[in-house]
């Protein structure tokens, strides 16, 4: 889908309805960022989608999807050390992978400047937690800009670049899910594309660039000094603003998308609206501005999504300055959990100041509840036959370890495969740990292909090296599935060009794995044969069960006019209502009609035929293919 009808590199000013993620790319173009890197992860992958809308020959910067967030951070670090302004972006938990290098960034004089775009995920919409990455910024002495809307994303990114370049430092642009994905019309400015000199300007006299022993402490001083200078800027910055409602009694301090929730609900206020201090820079905070605000209000409520960093700092400031202002922050665990939506913010303020809003209307309870709809594997997904076969074959005491990716969904009924998941690439090593001292319960771990290259390889080397007795099932589908079909080292294509694929099997052989078996993921009998053989192996074994992502393939086939439109038909004359297709295989295609008959839903079925082997009554047939034979 096009996000923008005007080219993002157009030198003319233009207005366009875009999401925050698209707005960043225009800001990159205007501000002369030259190297951009990432590893795909929600809520940020649409930044790369917007980049891909610019043909490579017109793209004023280099972009790559790197193999993981740490690698992406280091590429951006290396590039800025050559004087090129760089930017790295990734999902919230991506920073945990990047952390080893990320926490050092502030220590260095980053010669071209660097902006780190973080996609935090309050509400854990698509992440395994809702960690507040302001902690990581504070840990690393790196300042944060936090926009509330796509318009602010655009302006703040440009400001972040300008400071990062001038001060030769890293600056974070912290986004949250509904800032990344919020849509808004933005007036983009005109700019003049400049011819860029790519001459490498790395100069080790501008260091120190090696943080060891006493130098590390010197370099920490450098980071603290730059942060202090930034704090001075923060106190003067127009991104921190006061909305004056002439209320000397009540004030609210907030930042990010919470500010928009607040503005929305205050339209309904019946009592005098509180003054608002909206921070665009939540770290380091503008102390003077905040002191003035606290001193000039009797009561101040802090509306702070996720953790209470701001609250602690403000209360300490009030104590030091002997302020009489009553400061209220988080009152219960619920205020630490979930997104600060307009509904949530209204609830919080209602409790704080019951006279602020009219009494809420009571709306009668729904007559019927809608059935839950957990996410599930797509029709034709190669993971489904694997999980169906395993859930039939494994013993109840066997332990299955999932990883991050589409196959994580195997944990849901009816398959219940993948009983424990922690983080990207953990499965081999968690599985290895579960196998120590364990002679009774077999351990099977899973990993998808993108995750395999991302973080699973060190665990595999370790399993070989330390002779851990587990079976790893690698499930290559030729793409980064869950995040929206990005390429990875196994696909034979990077973001920019066709390259040699680095096949999973070849990597495994290179890592010293002796026992490797392969089959198509659709072939349940062969797969189970391989699993059984792997249990007989000594030490570590791998089964590769490969099948292309059928969602991606079907989309591509439809686009190319190659989709045959085959459909599976349930033959009523043969169907014995065994319900295996629904209860054991669980392809969303199979539905139960009011009369109890089973059908293959024509909107959903892609005619892949992976279901046919599961029906013991042989009532499934692939309609068109058979007709063609006749």
């Amino acid at each position, binding site marked *: *889908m*096009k996000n923008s*009808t005007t080219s993002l590199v157009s030198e003319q000013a233009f207005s366009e*309805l875009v999401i925050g993620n698209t707005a960043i790319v225009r800001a990159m173009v205007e501000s002369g960022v030259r190297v951009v890197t990432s590893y795909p992860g*929600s*809520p940020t992958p*649409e930044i790369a989608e917007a980049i891909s809308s610019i043909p490579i020959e017109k793209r004023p910067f280099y972009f790559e999807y790197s193999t993981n967030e740490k690698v992406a951070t280091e590429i951006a670090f290396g590039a800025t050390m050559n004087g090129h302004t760089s930017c790295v972006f990734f999902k919230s938990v991506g920073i945990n992978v990047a952390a080893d290098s990320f926490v050092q960034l502030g220590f260095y004089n980053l010669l071209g400047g660097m902006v780190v775009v973080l996609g935090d995920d309050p509400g854990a*919409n*698509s992440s395994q937690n809702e960690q507040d990455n302001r902690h990581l910024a504070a840990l690393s002495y790196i300042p944060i800009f936090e926009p509330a*809307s796509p318009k602010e994303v655009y302006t703040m990114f440009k400001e972040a670049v300008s400071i990062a370049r001038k001060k030769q430092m890293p600056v974070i642009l912290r986004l949250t899910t*509904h800032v990344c*994905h*919020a*849509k*808004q*019309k933005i007036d983009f400015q005109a700019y003049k594309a400049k011819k860029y000199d790519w001459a490498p300007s790395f100069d080790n006299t501008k260091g120190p660039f090696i943080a060891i022993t006493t130098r590390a402490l010197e370099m920490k001083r450098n980071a603290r000094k730059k942060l202090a200078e930034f704090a001075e800027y923060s106190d003067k910055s127009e991104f921190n603003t006061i909305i004056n409602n002439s209320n000397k009694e009540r004030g609210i301090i907030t930042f990010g998308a919470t500010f*928009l*929730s607040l*503005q*929305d*609900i205050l*339209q*309904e206020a019946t009592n005098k609206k509180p003054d608002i201090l909206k921070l665009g820079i939540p770290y380091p905070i503008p102390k003077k501005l905040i002191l003035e605000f606290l001193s000039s209000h009797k009561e101040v409520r802090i509306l702070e999504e996720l953790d209470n960093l701001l609250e602690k700092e403000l209360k300490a400031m009030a104590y030091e300055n002997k302020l009489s202002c009553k400061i209220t922050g988080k009152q219960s665990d619920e205020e630490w959990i979930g997104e600060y*939506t307009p*509904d949530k913010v*209204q609830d919080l303020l209602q409790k704080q100041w019951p006279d602020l809003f009219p009494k809420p*209307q009571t*709306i009668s309870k*729904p*007559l*019927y*509840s*809608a*059935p*839950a*709809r*957990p*996410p*599930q*594997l*797509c029709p034709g997904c190669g993971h489904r036959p694997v999980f169906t076969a395993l859930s039939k074959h494994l013993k109840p005491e066997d332990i299955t370890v999932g990883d991050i990716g*589409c196959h994580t*969904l195997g944990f*849901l*009924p*009816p398959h219940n495969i993948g009983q424990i998941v922690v983080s990207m690439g953990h499965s081999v090593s968690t599985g290895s740990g579960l196998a120590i001292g364990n002679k009774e319960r077999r351990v099977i771990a899973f990993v998808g292909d993108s995750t395999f290259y991302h973080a699973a390889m060190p665990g595999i080397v370790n399993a070989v090296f330390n002779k851990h007795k587990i079976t790893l099932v690698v499930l290559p589908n030729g793409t980064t599935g*869950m*995040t*929206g079909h990005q390429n990875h080292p196994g696909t034979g294509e990077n973001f920019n060009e066709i390259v040699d694929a680095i096949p999973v099997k070849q990597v495994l052989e290179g890592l010293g794995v002796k026992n490797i078996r392969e089959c198509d993921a659709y072939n349940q009998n062969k797969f189970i044969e391989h699993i059984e053989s792997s249990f007989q192996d000594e030490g570590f074994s791998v089964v590769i069960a490969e099948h292309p992502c059928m*969602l991606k393939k079907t989309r591509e086939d*439809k686009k190319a006019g190659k989709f045959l439109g085959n459909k599976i038909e349930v033959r009523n004359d043969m169907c014995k209502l065994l319900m295996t297709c*629904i*209860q054991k295989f669980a392809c*969303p295609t*199979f*539905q*139960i009609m009011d009369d109890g008959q089973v059908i293959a*839903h024509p*909107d*959903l079925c892609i005619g892949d035929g992976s279901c046919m082997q599961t029906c013991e009554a042989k009532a499934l047939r692939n309609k068109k293919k058979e007709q063609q034979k006749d």
Partner: protein
Amino acid sequence: MKSETFNIYIIGVGGQGLGLLSETIARAAAYSGINVCGTDTHGLAQRGGMVDSTIRLGENVFSPLIRKNDADLVIGMEINESLRGVNDYLKPKGTLVYYSVSWQPLPVRLGKEKEVKKSMLEESCKTKEAKIFEANMDNLKDSRMQNVVLLGVLAKNQLIPGIEPKHYKQALSDLLNHKILESNIEVFEKIVG
């Protein structure tokens, strides 16, 4: 909330083309000169799970999110999800437009929960004194064109104040390439008349 604000909540199942429907309406609103903001579900929920989108029209909209029971219009792309949309977001005296197709969620297929029927949806709208419009068209080339059928019903009944059929068409032509555009416009015009 000021009277001119108009909130639209769209709900469906991952794979139905909700993103396109939402983007078309938002762009159509922009073409008609209305200030617009909104947001879509992305990421994990797309895999056969519930997906939703918000569009907010008017001069005084800030957050892209809609509050519970505050949608003037709920657009349901699937019958089970339509009930969820009505229960959670439809404003009393609002409007529901839904496409009458069922993509049974897993608990329904496993016999653990009940499938939503047309009568349940009608009764639920009645308790909220809401208007209800059903959309459906047989023999569509691609099930993803169901969203253009919904657009047609919106346009024909002028369910979004200020947006005219030409604005929807303008938005569609931004978003679809030539061949697909033609067949979609055909379906759209068949409904609008």
